């Protein structure tokens, strides 16, 4: 079979070309790494703010953001950079939903267990929000307003809450929000508008 070696050598790159190819791949990987670092550094604090509002717990929010970062890097590093933000928030959203589900189960188990009061170690986001009544010891104006928003958001459906946080706090457009939420752009618009209406009803007349 004299043809086989000839065919192989024709398809295999020469050592120098192979070396150059490897070096180009390494350079591309380094570029991706740097771009991802910039992306995560730019997004982490806002993501934490959103996770904390959704979960009402500082430590849980940190864990959720770390998990979302790891999953993004592990599974989507090779995607175009413009897809990272909606993908990251989709992962974070799933992670937050998981935490909330686990918390519900934990509470149900504690409530069922004899002597359990169901209020064990997981603080309710509404309860843990700052007192909207304010008073002389009230925190700064912005914090107080944010605590009120948190209370209203806690009473909305999860979709409305997500649409509001991603559109308003994270500043994502409708298309990116739809990817992050895994729904249509029309749904995003509806959920966002309803969330805004609910906030307007409660906070519209609130003066600082």
């Amino acid at each position: 079979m004299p043809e086989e070696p000839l065919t192989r050598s024709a398809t295999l790159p020469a050592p120098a070309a192979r070396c150059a190819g490897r070096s180009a791949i390494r350079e591309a990987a380094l570029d991706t790494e740097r771009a991802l670092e910039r992306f995560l550094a730019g997004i982490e604090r806002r993501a934490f703010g959103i996770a904390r509002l959704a979960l009402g717990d500082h430590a849980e929010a940190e864990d959720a953001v770390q998990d979302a970062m790891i999953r993004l890097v592990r599974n989507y590093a090779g995607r175009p950079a413009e897809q990272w933000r909606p993908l990251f928030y989709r992962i974070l959203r799933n992670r937050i939903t998981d935490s909330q589900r686990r918390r519900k189960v934990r509470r149900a188990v504690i409530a069922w267990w004899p002597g359990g009061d169901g209020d064990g170690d997981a603080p309710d986001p509404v309860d843990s929000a700052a007192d909207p009544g304010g008073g002389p010891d009230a925190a700064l104006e912005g914090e107080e307003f944010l605590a009120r928003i948190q209370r209203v958001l806690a009473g909305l459906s999860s979709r409305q809450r997500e649409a509001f946080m991603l559109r308003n706090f994270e500043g994502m457009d409708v298309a990116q929000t739809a990817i992050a939420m895994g729904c249509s752009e029309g749904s995003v618009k509806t959920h966002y508008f309803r969330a805004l209406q609910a906030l307007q009803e409660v906070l519209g007349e609130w003066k600082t």
Partner: protein
Amino acid sequence: MEDMNERMRELERRSRAAFDEGVAGLPVATRTRLARARATALGELRRRRLRGFPAWIPAGAVAAAAIAGVMLWQDERAPPGETALAQFEDLDLVAGAEDFDMFAEDGDFYAWATDEAARDMG
């Protein structure tokens, strides 16, 4: 109506400003932990690069391709129609939901990886 829109816009602006303020005032300890989380996430990518895997290959892809290869290999030996559903249920247990998106969108890569895995298994 215009007044209503104006009030909603004002609410959007104020709520965003309050959120921005909260994020800007995060304690140093929280910022440090977030930076550490970022370093942990990127460390995985760095290790992969040093091992010579390009960044575009997701970490679970080779394992998923091997599983798909095993499924195809078993399927050839099983009575028709019996194993397909059960095998997909098994795959669901070992792969995350986000990983499944990759099957739909990176079809060429998975087709190649599946071929490779099937070839390795003879």
